[in-house]
């Protein structure tokens, strides 16, 4: 039973106050929304709205020429807590927003909304906006996907990575043909320039580590089909699932840590198989020449142009264009974290997150979803621990395991309380602690159920006793039955 609270400030700029406000500004209002995930699990969200008038500085900021400038100017005026939102309402006729756009979402935790005709329109726009910027019923049910029957989930929702305390990101360059291609990539610079800003932003969410490797003679598991028309090789969409397994064996285990690994592979096809293109289900080539695998990572095929003269000496030296590659990989990274911007209606305008690859409010979305998921994980872990203890009566619980369980429960409760109070950051921290404690308790080596004799085996040892003892008992039982039957027969005979 989750309660989530989102603090929202609705700021009216001059001339945008609707006429039918219930009370004079400023005032508070709470809106509730119920998301039912499951028979026993439901999520209640409280939107705690504070309606007020814009301050002088905010008015000045809203006088900017474009929405982007207004957004940067407003950024300085906010003391934006994680998870809180500020919505600026501008007059319906304002020229700040482009034509046809009613809602503008900035890079940070603020948005601009046209006032609309009357309170009802404004309310519905606000509701749409807050869902986009915090959580939607589908993002919550994805986070709780362990408890949702599979049929209710969209395939999209299974793409997202599970919440974890850390992730390892591995970029691998696969060069199956080092004899003809000497491929070099400046991964160090590319990581520093494109990936690191995103990870710095995400560092609130989890620990990230990045590394890269080059693997030679690593081939895809599928032989591509030759297409005469385009004189190129094609990899059709239905064969993509078979591509990963043979590569996976070469990637190397992440033996030194327990975090899930995100693999991004750049595949330079062999000379005899290039150029290689990926086809989608309809047979059209994929423009990025890349695909991603849910919860695993992404693969991009990077074709090397054939040398101008056929007698150019081998190996051919190739420098990878890292901008093109990183664009694809970052898009895949966003997808793996479940940040997609597709399903929005046309009246929305989203500010591009720029170099950081991630807007502040998108980080909040992740935090909301992960906090809920963490708490659900803790409850699942503790439940199965309890089931194990129920099954084996004489299991020994050490004091430190017990204290971990208590800590997990306490942290989970405090995370719930903080969610209900709208403190997203501290709620997330508490949920992380709860996960750590509950996992530590669950995976404690002393709780291995194989350490304990199952009762049926104990019984098996004493079979030499029970079997001979059972024989006379059974025989006499049989005798009793026989006698009883005879006694029954005898009276009928008498008749």
């Amino acid at each position, binding site marked *: 039973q989750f309660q989530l609270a989102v603090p929202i400030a609705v700021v009216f700029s001059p001339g945008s106050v609707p006429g039918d406000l219930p009370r004079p500004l400023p005032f508070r209002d709470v809106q509730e929304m119920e998301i039912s995930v499951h028979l026993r699990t439901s999520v209640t969200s409280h939107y705690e709205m504070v309606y007020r008038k814009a301050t002088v500085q905010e008015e000045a900021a809203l006088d900017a020429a474009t929405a982007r400038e207004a957004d940067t100017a407003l950024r300085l005026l906010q003391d934006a807590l994680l998870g809180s939102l500020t919505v600026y309402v501008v007059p319906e006729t304002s020229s700040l927003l482009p034509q046809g756009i009613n809602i503008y979402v900035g890079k940070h935790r603020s948005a601009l909304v046209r006032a609309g005709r009357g309170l009802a329109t404004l309310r519905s726009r606000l509701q749409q906006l807050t869902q986009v910027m915090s959580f939607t019923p589908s993002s919550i049910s994805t986070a709780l996907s362990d408890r949702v029957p599979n049929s209710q989930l969209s395939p999209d929702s299974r793409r997202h990575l599970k919440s974890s305390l850390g992730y390892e990101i*591995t970029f691998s360059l696969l060069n199956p043909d*080092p*004899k003809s291609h000497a491929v070099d990539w400046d*991964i*160090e610079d590319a*990581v520093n320039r494109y990936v690191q800003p995103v990870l710095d932003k995400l560092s609130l969410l989890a620990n990230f*580590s*990045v*590394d*890269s*490797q*080059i693997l*030679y*003679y690593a081939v895809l598991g599928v032989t591509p089909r030759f297409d005469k028309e385009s004189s190129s090789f094609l990899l059709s969409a239905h064969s993509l699932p078979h591509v990963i397994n043979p590569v996976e*064996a*070469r990637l*190397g*285990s992440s*033996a*030194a*840590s327990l975090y899930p690994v995100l693999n991004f592979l750049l595949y330079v096809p062999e000379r005899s198989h290039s150029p290689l293109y990926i086809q989608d289900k309809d047979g059209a080539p994929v423009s990025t020449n890349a695909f991603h695998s849910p919860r695993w990572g992404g693969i991009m095929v990077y074709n090397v142009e054939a040398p101008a003269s056929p007698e150019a000496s081998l*190996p051919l030296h190739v420098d990878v264009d890292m901008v093109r590659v990183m664009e694809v990989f970052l898009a895949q990274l966003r997808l793996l974290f479940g940040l997609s911007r597709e399903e929005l209606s046309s009246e929305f305008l989203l500010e591009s997150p720029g170099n950081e690859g991630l807007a502040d409010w998108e980080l909040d979305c992740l935090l909301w979803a992960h906090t809920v998921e963490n708490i659900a994980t803790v409850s699942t872990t503790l439940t199965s621990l309890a089931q194990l203890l129920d099954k084996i009566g004489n299991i020994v619980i050490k004091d430190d395991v017990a204290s971990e369980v208590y800590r997990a429960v306490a942290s989970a409760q405090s995370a719930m309380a903080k969610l209900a109070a709208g403190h997203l950051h501290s709620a997330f921290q508490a949920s992380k602690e709860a996960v750590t404690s509950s996992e530590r308790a669950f995976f404690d080596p002393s709780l291995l159920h194989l350490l304990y004799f199952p009762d049926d085996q104990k019984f098996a*040892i*004493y079979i*030499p*006793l029970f*079997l*001979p*003892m059972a*024989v*006379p*008992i059974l025989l*006499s039982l049989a005798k009793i039955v026989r006698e009883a039957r005879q006694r029954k027969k005898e009276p009928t005979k008498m008749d």
Partner: protein
Amino acid sequence: GGMLAAGLLLLLLAAGPGWAGAEQARRDVLREELLLSPLPAGDLAATFQFRTRWDADLQQGEVSHYRLFPKALGRLVAALGVRELHLALTQGFWRTRVWGQPPLQAPAGAELWVWFQPTVTDVDKAWKELSNILSGIFCASLNFIDSTNTVTPTASFKPLGIANGTDHSLLRYAVLPREVVCTENLTPWKKLLPCGSKAGLAVLLKAERLFHSSYHSQAVHIRPICRDASCLAVSWELRQTLTVVFDSFSSGQGKKDWSLFRMFSRTLTDACPLASQSKVYVDISPKSKEEELLEVTPTPASVHEAIVQGDKRTYAVYDLLSPSLFNTSRSLNVQLKWKRPQDSSELPTPILHAQRYVSGYGLQTGEISTLIYNTHPYRAFPVILLETVPWYLRLYVHTLTIITKGKENKPSYIHYQPAQDRKRPHLLEMLIQLPANSVTKITIQFERALLKWTEYPPDPNHGFYVSSSVLSALVPSITAMKHVDMEQSPLFTSLFPSSDGSSYFVRLYTEPLLVNLPTPDFSMPYNVICLTCTVVAVCYGSFYNLLTRTFHVEEPSRGRLAKRLANIIRKFRGVPPL
């Protein structure tokens, strides 16, 4: 022929600087090498070495972009503060007496020794974690390394790479003599090679041939080395070595001729495209002063002469990177033929060799004896002996005797760490002077301890292994050696640092021992349960019968056999029947 060889040499020299230029741009270099040496007894030893040198400091964090160096090992070194790592997995035993001094020997089973960085605070924890991760990487049961088989030697294992200060508390050494090495260990080892087993010398590594041999040893050595002569910066070196001894005499129908194809059922077709050096060396040193007895085909492009382990050796060299090698034929199949049957009576005995055995009778006490031979005609030299004995063999140190030529030999250094039951093994290290042309016998008595019933391994009647003892010595060389640059010389000469020209370093391992411990009858508890249960059940059954049966007086019925008999008897007696 000579003209051609000289021309090829020139070609090679001309190609040299170009490669050096390419190497400087890249920061990691791979060299691969195969050494084929016919052993005195007619066997053939093949030693593969793959050396990846990376001009980057793994320890200073933030290095996470790997090219030739395998990521799994690099991360391990960086994460756990490893200064030096040596892991060897071996099947079989190198017979030093028959086969001569090995280029690289390892004890039977798994051996792991690691130097940690001084910054590592909890060495034992890092050691435990390291052995667990390595057991995952190499599919070996290194996770059985714990405090009962780990020791910290004080003198035997010096760092092989550059090291400032040798604080022995940072060293850990463990051997698992029971470990069986097989394909599942070879596959991950091959996976660490940049070219895998797809190209270069590694195509010869076919498991079904490698394990059909008398001796198989694969190893991984990681160490920091000087980047250049001034030694201001550190490079990291990964050496993957694999030694295998083929019994070519028995597999070749009594002939000692061999070829690459006959041994590996493969031939070489190319070098690994990533390697900057790829060479095959064949030991063709004449055994005596007479004319050459053996003939190698194809004719080697060049001949390398070196002094290896105090002996002057001649090697035929095939450079897989030189384009002329594959001009005449598509593949390289090195063959060796003996011109006339060699009389195997005069086996040259190595200067230092050793043997070890367990003696005594009964299941209470026993004696470990080690014989160390110095066959040098006139030079005496010291040797460090390291003995690790598990705690369940309780050594009596007062019975330690060292006898050379009938006289007692007092060790000049002795370090003994007694065992603690279920915590740590015995560690005995001694520095013993070996006089010229002598046999030194070291004996020590022990008592066999009784284990708890849960401590016995599966199949306890097989016995318990005691790991090999380690002999480290600077053996005086017969021929003077000149100092050579490590980067230039073949890989097989350059793992152990040579101190000076007059002696060379040798590390030998003796046989592992198999000791029987008093073993209980493990089926006894179940037998007792069965017996008691049966007795109880029988008693219970008869009591139950007695208590529940109702007794009737049975009417005597006619026609019974007893009655007839009685009637017959009565008839004889003339008494009326019943």
